[in-house]
């Protein structure tokens, strides 16, 4: 019975995406572009050939992490809009640590750098978590503000302390031993995607099997019952935000160490925000983050091609994301279409 509901919820999410794309088609037509040309480019850009598929995977990788980050926070009734900032601090920390540990063997180097990136993200997640738990400060605003802070801070740190001598504000290129290994020769598909899937599996395991996951879920679904059950609601709130932050930090780490091979300020085309769309579609099911991330990665990849060959601005994909969120967020719409009650974010008692 659970599986049934899970499938139909996901189906509804996919319908939302299709609807959003339809609206997109209308916009394309209204702006004077060729819809067929646009969407066929979109499709080939996403799936038509090895290079396209590789690009899709490369773009899906950070989304896997940011989507997981936001989805995990949802489990605790929290809305982490700060994945963008968390990924920046994770990215810079990993780059710096990897460069500093040049004397360690590659496996250790990469491992520690990843952990450091996750740690930085966790630290950034701690602030809104704590403010919410102790003061009731709305995490949406605090995380958004921290996005700006993190972006500026990392840019400043690169310019001042970690700059590659030269005209561009960026770090030194990571040497071979400091990178995530390539999975497919000649593309930038790195081990990152595998790590992402592992992360999903891990957090899923935590949610399903561990006491921590259980308590987080109870806090998210019914904080009063959590109190009754002896759960420390404050502590779990902070921990959930820290874990969420750590995963988003890894998004940055993996991007820097697997694809870019250096930290460049403002490198993210909004992975943190797209992650929200990913999480919203995935709903309560963490495994669903994987197909959702690939879906949006495909849209990004296809969007690039669409822009290149059909002249249609990539922002169409941003608009599609926004529309998807809006369509999925309206439970009554879901009920009208499917007789379902959609709950994106649990925890009615947590404002």
């Amino acid at each position, binding site marked *: *019975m659970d599986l049934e509901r899970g499938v139909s919820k996901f189906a509804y999410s996919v319908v939302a995406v299709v609807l959003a794309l339809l609206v997109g088609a209308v916009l394309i037509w209204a702006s004077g572009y060729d819809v067929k040309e646009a969407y066929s480019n979109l499709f080939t850009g996403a799936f038509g050939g090895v290079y396209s598929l590789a690009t899709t995977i490369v773009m899906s990788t950070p989304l896997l992490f940011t989507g997981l980050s936001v989805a995990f926070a949802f489990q605790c009734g929290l809305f982490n809009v700060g994945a963008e900032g968390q990924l920046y601090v994770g990215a810079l920390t990993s780059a710096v640590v990897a460069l500093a540990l040049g004397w360690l063997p590659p496996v250790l180097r990469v491992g520690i750098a990843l952990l450091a990136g996750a740690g930085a993200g966790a630290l950034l997640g701690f602030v809104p978590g704590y403010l919410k738990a102790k003061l009731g400060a709305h995490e949406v605003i605090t995380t958004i503000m921290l996005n700006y802070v993190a972006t500026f801070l990392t840019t400043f740190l690169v310019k001042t302390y970690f700059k590659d001598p030269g005209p561009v504000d960026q770090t030194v290129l990571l040497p071979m031993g400091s990178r995530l290994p390539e999975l497919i020769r000649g593309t930038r598909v790195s081990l990152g995607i595998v790590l992402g899937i592992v992360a999903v599996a891990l957090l899923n395991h935590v949610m399903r099997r561990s006491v921590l996951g259980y308590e987080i*879920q*109870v806090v998210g*679904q019914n904080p009063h*019952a959590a*109190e*009754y059950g*002896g759960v420390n609601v404050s502590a779990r709130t902070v921990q959930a935000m820290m874990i969420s932050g750590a995963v988003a930090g890894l998004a940055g780490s993996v991007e820097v160490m697997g694809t870019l091979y250096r930290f460049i300020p403002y490198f993210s085309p909004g992975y943190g925000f797209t992650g929200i769309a990913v999480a919203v579609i995935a709903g309560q099911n963490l495994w669903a983050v994987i197909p959702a991330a690939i879906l949006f990665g495909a849209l990004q990849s296809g969007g690039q091609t669409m822009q290149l060959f059909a002249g249609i601005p990539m922002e169409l994909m941003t608009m599609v994301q926004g529309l998807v969120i809006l369509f999925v967020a309206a439970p009554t719409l879901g009920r009208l279409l499917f007789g379902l009650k959609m709950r994106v974010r649990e925890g009615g008692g947590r404002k």
Partner: protein
Amino acid sequence: MYAIRMENITKRFGNVVANDNVSFAAAPGEIHCLLGENGAGKSTLMRILFGLYRQDSGSIYINDNPVTISGPRDAISLGIGMVHQHFMLAEQLTVTENIVAGCEPRKNGLLDYEKARQDILEVSERYGLRVDPDAKVEDISVGQQQRVEIIKALMRGAEVLILDEPTAVLTPPEVSELFTVMRALSESGTTIIFITHKLKETMEISHSVTVLRDGKKVGTVSTEDATPESLVEMMVGRSLPVHDDCRMPPREAIALELKDISVSGRKGSRARLDNVNLDVRFGEILGIAGVDGNGQLELEEVVCGLRRPSKGRIIMSGQDLTGLDTRRIRDKGVAYIPSDRLRRGMVGSLSLSRNSVLGMHHHSYFSQRGVLLEDIIEKHAEEIIKKYDVRAESVHQPMGSLSGGNQQKMVVGRELTRPHSVVIACQPTRGLDVGAAYYIREQILDSRNKGKAVLLISAELDEILELSDRIAIIYEGQVVDVRPTGQFTERELGLLMTGERNGV
């Protein structure tokens, strides 16, 4: 001519018949009491009159004209006003703002505060309803809030005023004040319908009384002709079979002790709990009898660590547990069946399996090194389902998909199967059918016979009488009397529960 006539009103909620062919009438200017226990159907009947519910069958007449009331606005336009038990007041707004919202006096397009204040003060003076027009509702006493609600109704032209358990939250001097107001209103022609379970007040203030029991009307009498005893007999009615069980006598050792427990109320209002002293021995059931709203919720929360008392101590088997958090108190061996199952006792969207270990999930039996032992948890859930005859298809289905009765069985089952020495059972059979209720009571008795101490809080007198070794009556936050069950007659209990202390 009657101001209000309700004829043959029937209202069902699912399988429950809240009002069963009830007829009732009140004359103009009369103070008419609707008397009955919890669940008798009094509130439902009046909510139908005020338009919050629609009757399944039956008719309503205002001044002998048949009317249809489809919502509160209809009721208000017909001259009916209602002061609810839970006030409909915006706490952050002032008294004046709350009263005039929706029918504001205007001057040049702006709100005429001055006129509003004057109008309010005029009504206030006429009937003796003391209010401070400029105070914020959250800062005034409960008594004053009630007066605000009354003025609200009067200023909208209410000729019939329904008061739902108005004295439940008032101090004695506030009650006197309210009665003075009611008499003034009655004299000027306002019909007042007064819902209550308190006998003393019924006798003091009303002209006539209609008694409801189990959804049916038992009778209407003029207050002059009634006595407290005759009313209680109508309210409680049937004689109960004594529960036939062979009980072992309670042990000597005291399991749970409450010393001077107090919980303060809001500013200017009565304390929620006032110097409560209780003790429960091993192998005994202490029943707390009382009508809902007299401090039971606060008592339950304090004992289980969900609320801190402003004063007093909780001692279990000699250990002072005051101030400890819920987890630690419960780990000492306290099984807690909460009165609000949906809010406290379960997480509807999680599975039966998950719910079956809520509160004990951290014990080494159910989790090792932070990992839940799924198989054991499932088995645990299955055992509860079997033992308590819970109608469920699988342990994986969400608890919210069960019927209320089955949910309660799961909760009770969960609590009584955990290792415990003390049971706090609050409204344990609320919402259960006769068979399920019987079974639960059996389990509680069983716990007792195995030597556990049971604190039973229930609004159902039957249950208290059936199960308790000793009974304590709680009224307005105080423990009024504690005696072994055999020393109470049902009538005495009824009287004490409704505040009547004299001549008992």
